[in-house]
């Protein structure tokens, strides 16, 4: 687990290049900075200045080496590397509110932008006019689109929005691709069709307070595209499996809301949010249940030194408890909320490293193998050892 502090300000968003040697991030202003890894240090090599508002989303296409950025100035730019310089191309999104998130499709021939105008813009390149054109998905989105994730078939798009729902849309553009084959989410996929919409909070009937839920902060398709996970502001994480039954399993967690989520194997996901540490969740497909796998930020146990009488009274005064721990701040690596998770190595099926950035301006790369061994040492965390083992089996560690 390497913690690198890039800035003192929050990192709004980040994206890695194909071989993970360069990272593009927005340091909470109108620019995008690209850093290159040099040994253990990071050197800023480019500054992309074109936006007039905060850059809210960056995505770096690994194969075609293009970066798409979107910002609160209602614009998106596609950047291409010409020689040593990144040159922007404006994309007119036709939105009248800020853009919130952007994502290249798996084949990189189109990208989707979620915005506060209650719609998603699907943009593709039109060869005849040498121009990026966009199409809108409007219905039935009723509030800001906060997060997007593409299905591996390049057509389906999951969107999490502030109207408390997570939906799967079809973003089929006939100009750039063939008609897609059927998937578990449906077979007819005209542009803009809603193939899945989550209910209020996913739990059918169970809780009396099922209505409402919270803003859907993060969505993620699994590697195969058959499963969809999303995290919501009411501290729940839910997984839906595509198919006729389209069952939704959700877990109300005890943590603060999670802001981002990513599958690391077909059965387990990592999520992080306002609690400043990543958390593992394990999904059992047969039982249709999501269980809490454990905190992934295991701080080293500091030796318990004796506490003097004076300190005891001081603690009582300051914190109303005379407990022995004298830690002043958070024990986690990140000192503020984590806003984004990205998989570095191994893809979403067999992730071996992932990276988190947050509001503390720092970036941490997590090594799944060493996390797993750290978890093993702490016997307390073996609440769901069975499901944890099966999840880790997917990673071929156990």
């Amino acid at each position, binding site marked *: 687990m390497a913690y690198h502090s890039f800035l003192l300000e929050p990192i709004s968003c980040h994206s890695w290049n194909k071989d993970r040697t360069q990272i593009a991030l927005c340091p909470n202003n109108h620019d995008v900075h690209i850093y290159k890894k040099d040994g253990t240090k990071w050197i800023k090599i480019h500054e992309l200045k074109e936006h007039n508002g905060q850059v809210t989303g960056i995505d770096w296409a690994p194969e075609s080496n293009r970066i798409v950025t979107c910002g609160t100035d209602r614009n998106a730019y596609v950047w291409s590397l010409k020689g040593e310089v990144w040159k922007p191309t404006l994309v007119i999104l036709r939105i009248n509110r800020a853009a919130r998130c952007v994502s290249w499709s798996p084949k990189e021939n189109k990208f989707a932008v979620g915005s506060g105008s*209650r719609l998603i813009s699907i943009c593709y390149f039109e060869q005849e006019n040498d121009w990026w054109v966009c199409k809108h998905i409007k219905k039935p989105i*009723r*509030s800001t689109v906060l997060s997007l994730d593409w299905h591996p078939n390049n057509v389906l798009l999951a969107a999490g929005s502030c*109207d*408390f729902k997570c939906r799967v849309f079809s973003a089929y553009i006939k100009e750039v691709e063939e008609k897609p084959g059927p998937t578990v989410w449906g077979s007819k996929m005209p542009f803009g069709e809603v193939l899945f919409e989550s209910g*209020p909070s996913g739990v059918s009937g*169970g*809780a*009396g*307070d099922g*209505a*409402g*839920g*919270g803003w859907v902060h993060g969505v993620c398709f699994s590697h195969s595209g058959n499963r969809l996970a999303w995290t919501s*502001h*009411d*501290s*729940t994480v839910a997984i839906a499996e595509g198919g006729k039954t389209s069952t939704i399993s959700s877990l*109300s*967690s*005890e*943590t*603060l*809301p999670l802001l981002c989520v990513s599958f690391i194997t077909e059965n387990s996901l990592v999520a992080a949010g306002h609690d400043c540490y990543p958390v593992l969740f394990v999904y059992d497909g047969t039982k249709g249940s999501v269980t809490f796998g454990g905190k992934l930020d295991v701080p080293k146990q500091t030796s318990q030194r004796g506490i003097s009488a004076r300190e005891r009274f001081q603690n009582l005064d300051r914190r109303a408890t005379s407990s022995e721990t004298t830690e002043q701040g958070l024990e986690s690596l990140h000192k503020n909320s984590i806003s984004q998770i990205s998989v570095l190595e191994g893809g979403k099926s067999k992730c071996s490293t992932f990276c988190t950035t947050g509001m503390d301006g720092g970036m941490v790369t997590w090594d799944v193998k060493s996390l797993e061994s750290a978890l093993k040492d702490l016997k307390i965390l073996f609440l769901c050892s069975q499901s944890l083992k099966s999840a880790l089996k997917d990673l071929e560690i156990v």
Partner: protein
Amino acid sequence: MSKNTVSNRFRTVDVDEYDENKFVDEEDGGENQLGPDEAEVDSLIRQGNLMEALQAVLKNPPINTKNQNVKDCAEGLVLKVLSAFKSSDVDKGVQSLDKNGVDLLMKYIYKGFETPSDNSSAVLLQWHEKALSAGGLGCIVRVLTARKTV
């Protein structure tokens, strides 16, 4: 200065009402929800069977109903049950609830905080502490983000 700065009635206009894209919650049919059964709960309290009373009072929460009376009634009933518990039994009471029960209890606790009466806040704070250790911060977040409250 122009003349129309004198009146400030414009400040009381609710601009959201004029927004044609205003978000309206889906209306769930909540007319049949009557809240917990008062008679049953009262009898259980009199019998001294407080665990059962707790389970009974957390049934049928009047979440979707627009009838304020039903909600007030339910709240009063819950407060009665919570006050009837001995301090040492509060923990056991919370342990006997499942996850959804703890969430619902936390909702009632916060509702109770809104209108404090004689000793209610002290009792509620005790329950709040135990419910917090059972449900964690997520439980409180769910109370805050719920669109339909008890």
